[in-house]
């Protein structure tokens, strides 16, 4: 456990894991993984790309030696990074590429559940779109479940099946996408949806005006 | 104000800790003042034992420490076996002499180091910078020991300066002006040696500080705004450098009593250095402890002063304190 919960419970695959003892936690680690927002801080700048991706495998002792490296290269290809960059240090990569590295590392242990903590913020729009596509491809390829934390409502609206809205540290509304975004109940949710509509209509108006 | 109080308490605790450590260190050594006497076959061992008992050397460490603390409160700071007087009376004169020498050297060193360091930092890589960096490297390598010996050599060879001690014989009979001149002449070699020894490190620190600050974005934007060189330096860069420089100054102040051992002994300047050496050799325990503690007090006060000055000068720290 990286943090201890103050209150409430966490359930995973039908079991409560919030007060997990170390054995339970150790068993769960491969199944739940985390991709941080700050890719630069989340990757050791002195490690090479291959070392970063291979690290979880090394720690969990899934593979060793040459097989370790092969697996790392496989993962690099899967996330769209050229394998001959395997020996480059992580600080030589661009923001989008670092996120790919972080994702590759996160799926190395073949998890079922992936938490993406603001992983797309801080990237420019075109890179965001690329990473998003990657995530969707990986999801269908490995049957992943994502928990995406984001402040970008449009993004959420595009890909989420279920949505939970947080306000001042509490979940104020949750439900399916159509429910929450189509007919928001809570005041805060309504404000959020409204602000998106304002931006979208301005955008469409600008397009319409310029296009003709 | 509260900060001052907290830091003072912290300082006092440090002092107590240091004194305990000091006593522990001195207890490491099994020797004592009376070991020399043991070598003399005419003095019986029972006499020595009686002497030890008289001076309380046979009592356990905590007891000895306790009586030393009591003596400190009385103002005596222990007793010198060799000189048969309170440690305080021995130290007062010596501290005065040492402080005289080291304050002069420290002031000189800072007066030269700051402008030089600033100059070097504003022209990095140019020949002035390179030459001075080389010179400082050389001076650091030629340690204090070599510097003082070298200066002594020149002083003796040229017969220009008196060598050794603080005053010539017949000092009392000189007129006031002559006394001042005599004192100055005796000061030159030790003070020059000390200044030359501490100068290079100071210069490097000042230069490093300033180079770092001159490279920061806020200086660059000021420069882009067209702020002139002098104003940039004095109104923007130096105040920013104040923080590390004040800490450095605190260290310099703290080292006033402890930096001059070598120079004093070699040039015969009657300060703490020769006394420490002598007392160490003769195992005059409480004198050694007294000297070490005196230096420690200075070090703690130096740091304390630096901390207080930092808070007074740096508005960020004041805000931090207010937020607590």
């Amino acid at each position, binding site marked *: 456990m990286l943090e201890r919960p103050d209150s409430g419970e966490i359930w995973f695959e039908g079991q409560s894991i919030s007060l997990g003892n170390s054995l339970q936690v150790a068993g769960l680690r491969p199944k739940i993984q985390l991709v941080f927002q700050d890719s630069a801080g989340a990757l050791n700048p002195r490690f090479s790309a291959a070392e970063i991706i291979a690290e979880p495998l090394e720690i969990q002792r899934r593979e060793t030696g040459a097989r370790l490296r092969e697996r790392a290269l496989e993962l690099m290809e899967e996330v769209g990074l050229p394998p001959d960059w395997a020996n480059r240090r992580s600080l030589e990569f661009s923001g989008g590429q670092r996120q790919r590295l972080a994702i590759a590392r996160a799926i190395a242990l073949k998890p079922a559940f992936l938490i993406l903590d603001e992983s797309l913020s801080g990237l420019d729009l075109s890179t965001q779109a690329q990473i998003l596509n990657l995530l969707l491809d990986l999801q269908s390829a490995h049957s992943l479940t994502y928990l995406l934390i984001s402040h970008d409502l449009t993004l959420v609206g595009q890909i989420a099946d279920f949505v939970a809205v947080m306000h001042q540290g509490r979940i104020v509304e949750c439900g399916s996408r159509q429910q929450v975004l189509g007919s928001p109940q809570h005041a805060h949710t309504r404000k959020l949806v409204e602000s998106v509509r304002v931006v979208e209509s301005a955008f469409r108006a600008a397009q319409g005006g310029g296009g003709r | 104000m509260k900060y001052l109080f907290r830091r003072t308490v912290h300082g006092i605790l*440090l002092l107590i800790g240091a004194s305990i*450590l000091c006593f522990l260190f001195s207890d490491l050594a099994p020797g004592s003042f009376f070991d020399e006497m043991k070598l003399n076959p005419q003095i019986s061992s029972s006499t020595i034992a009686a002497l030890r008992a008289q001076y309380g050397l046979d009592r356990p460490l905590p007891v000895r420490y306790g009586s030393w603390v009591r003596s400190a409160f009385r103002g005596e700071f222990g007793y010198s076996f060799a000189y048969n007087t309170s440690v305080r009376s021995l130290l007062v004169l010596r501290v005065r002499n040492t402080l005289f020498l080291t304050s002069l050297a420290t002031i000189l060193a800072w007066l030269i180091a700051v402008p030089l360091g600033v100059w070097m930092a504003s022209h990095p890589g140019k020949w002035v910078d390179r030459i001075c960096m080389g010179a400082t490297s050389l001076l650091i390598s030629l*340690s204090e020991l*070599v510097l003082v010996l070298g200066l002594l050599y020149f002083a003796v060879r040229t017969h220009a300066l008196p060598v050794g001690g603080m005053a010539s014989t017949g000092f009392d009979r000189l007129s006031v002006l002559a006394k001042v001149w005599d004192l100055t002449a005796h000061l030159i070699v030790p003070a020059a040696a000390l200044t030359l020894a501490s100068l290079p490190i100071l210069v490097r620190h000042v230069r490093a500080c300033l180079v770092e600050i001159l490279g920061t974005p806020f200086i660059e934007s000021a420069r882009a705004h067209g702020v002139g060189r002098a104003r940039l330096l004095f109104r923007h860069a130096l105040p920013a450098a104040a923080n590390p420089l004040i800490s450095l100054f605190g260290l310099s102040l703290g080292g006033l009593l402890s930096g001059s051992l070598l120079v004093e002994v*070699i040039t015969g300047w009657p300060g703490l250095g020769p006394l420490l050496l002598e007392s*160490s050799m003769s195992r005059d325990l409480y004198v050694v402890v007294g000297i*070490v503690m005196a*230096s420690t007090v200075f070090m703690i006060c130096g740091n304390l002063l630096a901390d207080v000055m930092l808070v007074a000068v740096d508005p960020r720290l004041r805000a931090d304190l207010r937020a607590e």
Partner: protein
Amino acid sequence: MMARHKILAAVVLLVTLHLAILFAGFVAPADPVVQNRDFPFAPPTRLHFVDLRGHLHLRPFVYQWTPRPDAFNEYEESRDREYPLQFFVSGAAYRVAGLVPSRVHLFGVDAPAQIFLAGTDSYGRDQFSRILSGGQISVAAGILATLISLVLGTLIGGVAGFWGKWIDESAMRFAELFMVLPWLYVLFGVRAFLPLHLSSVQTFLLLIAVIGTIGWARPARLIRGIVLSAKNQNYVAASRGFGASNVYLLRRHVLPQTYGVLLTQAALLVPQYVLAEVTLSFFGLGLSEPTPSWGGLLATLQQYNVLVSYWWMFAPAVALAVVSLGYLSVANAFHERLQSSSS
């Protein structure tokens, strides 16, 4: 890269010096303890390339010093015979690095001439040889004491930074205590209070232990800072998320960050500790005669007549300065490399 070249040059210089000192028996032409009572305070032997007849010799030669009949402690060269410099001569016996016996010396001249590259002292002992073997003591003391300080500092600083909270608090307070004491005074005090009847080896080891133990605080602070900031990085959290143990984290992520600082600190501390040993020996608190040490060699300069008349007795100071300069350049180069790699 400029920084890399600088490091290389400085390291080469240092390695050469250390090799010369390590193989002092080989490099030195004479035995450091052998006295030549006929040649007290002889000045350095002059190397000549041009002989009396004006011929140029590629191989330098020396003339033997003979005492001036009318003056005291003054010498003149006796021009009757030239003694060319020979290499790999057979001379006094010694042991290579204290183990293998040998008689070969790097250079020398035929008997009865002797070559005193740095002059002689009051007993006629060759100063050059004494400087080289004295270097073994002084430099070894510096290096060993540095090792002690750094090991202690890394252990304490690392534990404090990694496990934090009260361990950190108490460790840093303890370090503060050590930093506030005037270490030179404490060193003198402790050394002087030690028993007088210790053997050379015991004195040496004790000296190193004391010098090294006093100086752990500053490296500890630095290491602690690095460990603390490394521990709080997100990639360490990520590793923990993968199930990494503390040992793994320390080994793979945290400790590698300390190597740069450790090297720089080592390069800074060695000359300081060599100087500490030299200072102690200078005042007679280090190793005693006849074991040479740079401090002991310099101590004769405290006598007025030696200081004034025999300038070659300053030679150990040159050796000390060269060693310090070497280490300082290395430290600067490391520091530069560290700065450039972290930005």
